[in-house]
């Protein structure tokens, strides 16, 4: 049936019915399909109409599109023009709005702009590294300068403190021993100036990371010590398993962050983690090793069986405190002196200076008086042997000499001046007397050794000499044995001793 329905209209339309060959079937078909044919014709007409309309619309649409494009172009130009005019008017308002937003919502703005600014800075550094360096140098340079300045000040304070500390027997011996080992004192001072301090000590169980004991210098215990010990254990395990390649003896023994370090000393069931600053002193690690060993000897089983119950473990804080106390002190020395200490030091220094001055004066005085206290005996013996008879008679008041004494007593002393003075030098420290006489205690000053003298006269074995002592011209009689003459005294200028 379908087959027929498809063929019939074509046949009918193309050939058309004729009187001779009209088939009754065709006639029936034409009758039956008349409506269909009519519908088809109407459809064809509609299609033609639509086609025409489409063509018309297409032209119209093209026209409209062109008009729209023209309008768009005009709009674009207008917007551009308006924008150029608007920017100067909007800019101040926009600035005010942004300023207001920053003032009112500083945190939100910072949070919003932070990532953008960070990225912008990164891009700018990548693209214009040199410009960024120049721009940032004043800030970074000043910051670095300030940091170095602070460090230098701290170092200077520490060195001063260390110098104060080194004044004393222990400090002196330490310097001497360091010198013997080839370490200059400057290096020793610099090394000591880097402050060493123990900040915290943890005793931690292996594996579980449970805290066995903790020491902190302040009385208030630090918080989160249990968390820190657990995290430290995890980090230690991570490093050991990642880099230790399963070797039990390879363990993390030091962690550094900033100026602080964690020194780790491991034992069989527990390990010590000591947080320090500065350079650890000699023997510090050996001390840690000893402490860990001692703790394991006395509490090893307790450490091993520890299940987190604090009542099952003894208080080990005092033992950790001993370690901290043993290595404490450097930091205390590094602290600046108090006002009272400074005053005490100043007074002490002043008293010290006064004492030293007094000691010097006493020493000088003693030296000056030494010849008086212990007069030289030897020089007096020799001249006495020769000339004693002359004066012994006088002193013993023998009547024989009493008579002569009245005859010409003064004549023996007065004419002794030599007309031309002769130069000489004292060969030793010798008492000077007002007269050429040993009798009585008439010595009044000392002629120092090597003092140049001018010989004014000679009386027997005595010489009258003149010399300068501390800018003062002095004169007196000395035994001639103590004077070495540069030129001999002419015999005619010697006043002979009066012999009774």
């Amino acid at each position, binding site marked *: 049936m379908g087959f027929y329905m498809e063929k019939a209209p074509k046949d009918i339309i193309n050939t058309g019915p004729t009187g001779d060959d009209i088939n009754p079937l065709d006639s029936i078909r034409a009758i039956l399909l008349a409506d269909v044919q009519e519908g088809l014709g109407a459809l064809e007409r509609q299609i033609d109409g639509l086609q025409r309309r489409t063509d018309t619309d297409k032209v119209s649409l093209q026209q409209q599109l062109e008009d729209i494009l023209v309008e768009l172009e005009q709009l674009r130009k207008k917007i551009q023009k308006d924008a150029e005019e608007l920017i100067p008017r909007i800019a101040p308002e926009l600035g005010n709005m942004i300023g207001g937003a920053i003032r009112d919502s500083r945190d939100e703005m910072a949070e919003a702009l932070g990532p953008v600014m960070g990225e912008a800075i990164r891009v700018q550094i990548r693209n214009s590294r040199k410009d960024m360096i120049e721009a940032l140098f004043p800030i970074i340079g000043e910051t670095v300068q300030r940091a170095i300045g602070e460090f230098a000040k701290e170092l200077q304070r520490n060195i001063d403190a260390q110098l104060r500390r080194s004044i004393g027997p222990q400090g002196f011996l330490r310097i001497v021993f360091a010198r013997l080992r080839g370490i200059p004192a400057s290096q020793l001072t610099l090394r000591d100036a880097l402050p060493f301090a123990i900040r915290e000590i943890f005793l931690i169980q292996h594996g579980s990371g449970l805290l066995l004991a903790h020491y902190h210098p302040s009385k208030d215990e630090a918080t989160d010590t249990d*968390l820190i010990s657990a995290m430290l254990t995890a980090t230690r*395990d991570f490093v050991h398993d990642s880099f230790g390649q399963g070797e039990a003896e390879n363990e993390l023994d030091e962690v550094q962050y900033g100026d602080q370090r964690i020194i780790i000393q491991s034992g069989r069931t527990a390990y010590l983690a000591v947080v320090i600053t500065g350079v650890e002193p000699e023997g510090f690690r050996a001390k840690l090793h000893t402490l860990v060993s001692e703790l394991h000897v006395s509490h090893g089983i307790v450490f091993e069986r520890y299940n987190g119950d604090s009542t099952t473990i003894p208080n080990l804080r005092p033992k950790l405190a001993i370690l901290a106390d043993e290595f404490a002190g450097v930091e205390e020395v590094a602290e600046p002196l108090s006002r009272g200490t400074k005053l005490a030091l100043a007074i002490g220094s002043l008293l010290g200076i006064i004492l030293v001055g007094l000691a010097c004066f006493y020493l000088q005085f003693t030296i000056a008086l030494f010849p008086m206290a212990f007069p030289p005996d030897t020089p007096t013996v020799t001249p006495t042997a020769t000339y004693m008879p002359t004066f012994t008679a006088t002193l013993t008041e023998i009547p024989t000499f009493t008579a002569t004494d009245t005859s010409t007593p003064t004549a023996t002393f007065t004419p002794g001046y030599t007309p031309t003075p002769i130069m000489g030098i004292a060969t030793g420290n010798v008492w000077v007397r007002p007269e050429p006489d040993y009798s009585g205690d008439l010595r009044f000053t000392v002629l120092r050794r090597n003092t140049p003298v001018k010989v004014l006269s000679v009386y027997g074995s005595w010489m009258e000499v003149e010399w300068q002592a501390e800018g003062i011209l002095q004169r007196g009689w000395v035994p001639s044995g103590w004077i070495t003459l540069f030129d001999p005294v002419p015999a005619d200028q010697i006043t002979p001793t009066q012999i009774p």
Partner: protein
Amino acid sequence: MTTLIQKKICLLGDFAVGKTSLVRRFVEGRFDDKYLGTIGVKISRKVITRSYGQLNLLVWDMTGGEDLDTKVRMSYLHGAAGALMVCDLTRSYTLDVFESYARQMRTLNPRVPLMFLANKVDLGNERVISDEQLLSISKALGGRSFYLTSAKTGENVETAFLHLADLIEEKA
């Protein structure tokens, strides 16, 4: 003087089952989550007041999705007093790792109690793991029970942790 007891517990489970979210619901933390990505563990603490004093639970939250046989992860299990094993109710394969986790934990700590948590119960429509499955695996691995939890709503989170604390104290 107050008695202080510290206990280490481990939190184990496949990737993205919600372990860290559960911890955030329960504990007070100090360390950032970034440690999970760096060394594979983040430690937090929950202080529980008891009649005898104070119980500090130190929760070792470990990254999931890796084989526990690796040495690093094994080290982290040492000295644990208990463990929470977490799966995701919307992903059935997150149960698969329970067996290996339980085996490793028992190898190192034979008597420790294990607690099983089925997380994301708030996503009820997407649930693919039944209670029967959970009960079965819990019993097979030596657990007593399991909890349906939600880190999002907090449902059963604290209860599960406290129950584990009770079990740990019973064993001690």
